[in-house]
């Protein structure tokens, strides 16, 4: 899954290209569609997110184990 930072960067790129003059109308429509999809997904992702908290434990052998931790 992409990170929010990557999503924002891609959206910024889409908007910039749409705002520039050198994009063909067909390409502009495709960009617009992609932008709308990404915007919706990003918004949903932000609103639905729930913080994950995990305790990291180092076992005797040196392996790491994580356990869910309640805030």
């Amino acid at each position, binding site marked *: 899954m992409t*990170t*929010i*930072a990557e999503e*924002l960067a891609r*959206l*910024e790129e*889409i*908007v910039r290209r*749409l*705002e520039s*003059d050198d*994009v063909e*109308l067909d390409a*502009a*429509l495709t960009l*617009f569609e992609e*932008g*709308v999809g990404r*915007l919706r997904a*990003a*918004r949903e*992702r*932000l*609103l639905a*997110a*729930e*913080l*994950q*908290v*995990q*305790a*990291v*434990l*180092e076992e005797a052998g040196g392996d*790491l184990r*994580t356990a869910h*931790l309640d*805030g």
Partner: protein
Amino acid sequence: MAPTDAVWSVSQLTAAAKRVVEGELPRMWVRGEVVGCKAWPSGHWYFSLRDAASQVRCCMWKLDAQRAGKPPVDGTEVFVLGKPGIYEAKGEFQLNVSRIIPTASIGRQHQELERVKTLLQKDGLFELARKRPLPEYASAIAVVTSRAGAAVRDIITVSRKRWPCARLFVLHARVQGDGAVDELVRALRVVNRLEVDLCILARGGGDKEDLAAFNTEAVCRALAAVRVPTISAVGHEIDISLTDLVADVRAATPSAAAELALADRREVLRQLDDLAGRLGAGLSGRTRLAAERLERTSDRMQSSMAVLLERHRRQLERLGAQLDALSPLRVLDRGYAVPVAPDGRVLKRRAEFLPGKPFRLRIADGDVPARVEPE
């Protein structure tokens, strides 16, 4: 004067004295010399603290005594942190001590702090040039702190509110007392084995001596060796530890560290709104541009057609004029006449004009009958 009804019982008096003393006098640091220290099998310590003119009874309960280590030797000059109170069973004024620090060790601690500080400074660990910027949108954060402390709860609370997309990895380490240094160093090393964007080293507020672990060379070097950007949130706004100087960023409190570490969801939602607006405007701008272009193109087409037509028209005129110039009628206009035989042949040679033969002279506005005269 005889006793009246308003006679106080001893308990009433000590209870009242306790209220006054404990209500009026806050927890405080007191400096004095220890005398008659007794460590009881129960774990509590009793001693007195005196200066040239006075003394006060002190007691230190089991848990605090354990934390302090060994009971002070008589004659040691100490700082104690205590809350004045009244022990009602004996009607005694006493200081309930929670911490005890030999005054000499403060000097030693200070010296040790300066030694480590100089060393780390020499190695460039405080250099501004090595400070890394925090990631703009951290999504995985390592938190090194005591799981029992308030720091971890504060960080979780702030993170949940601010950026719930994040994942927090809590690495437990005691933050004070025996073993704290080793546990902090180990936890900081484990951070380098995790896929995280950022590391927060945190501890809630407390007494200055409790910061000791965060002023050790080992912990400072382990923090400097963390591969991701670090935030030190140790102590309180007024306390500064050496880890604060080593970390990329210092936060006054653990909550402040979480705020520095994470983006604000509301801010990003606003940013998405802004992008949505620009996206719409961008498309409609682009469509308008296309329409304008189309219009311009058809304008250009029309005007080039007109130019073409005009050119053709002129060409036609020119050709027409040339055609005209070639037309015999134009020549006749200028006064010439063309002799034409009755069969319509144009008579061009002298031999064709036989004496007495009729012919016609074609002139501009028609033709005239004519006959060749005999020579």
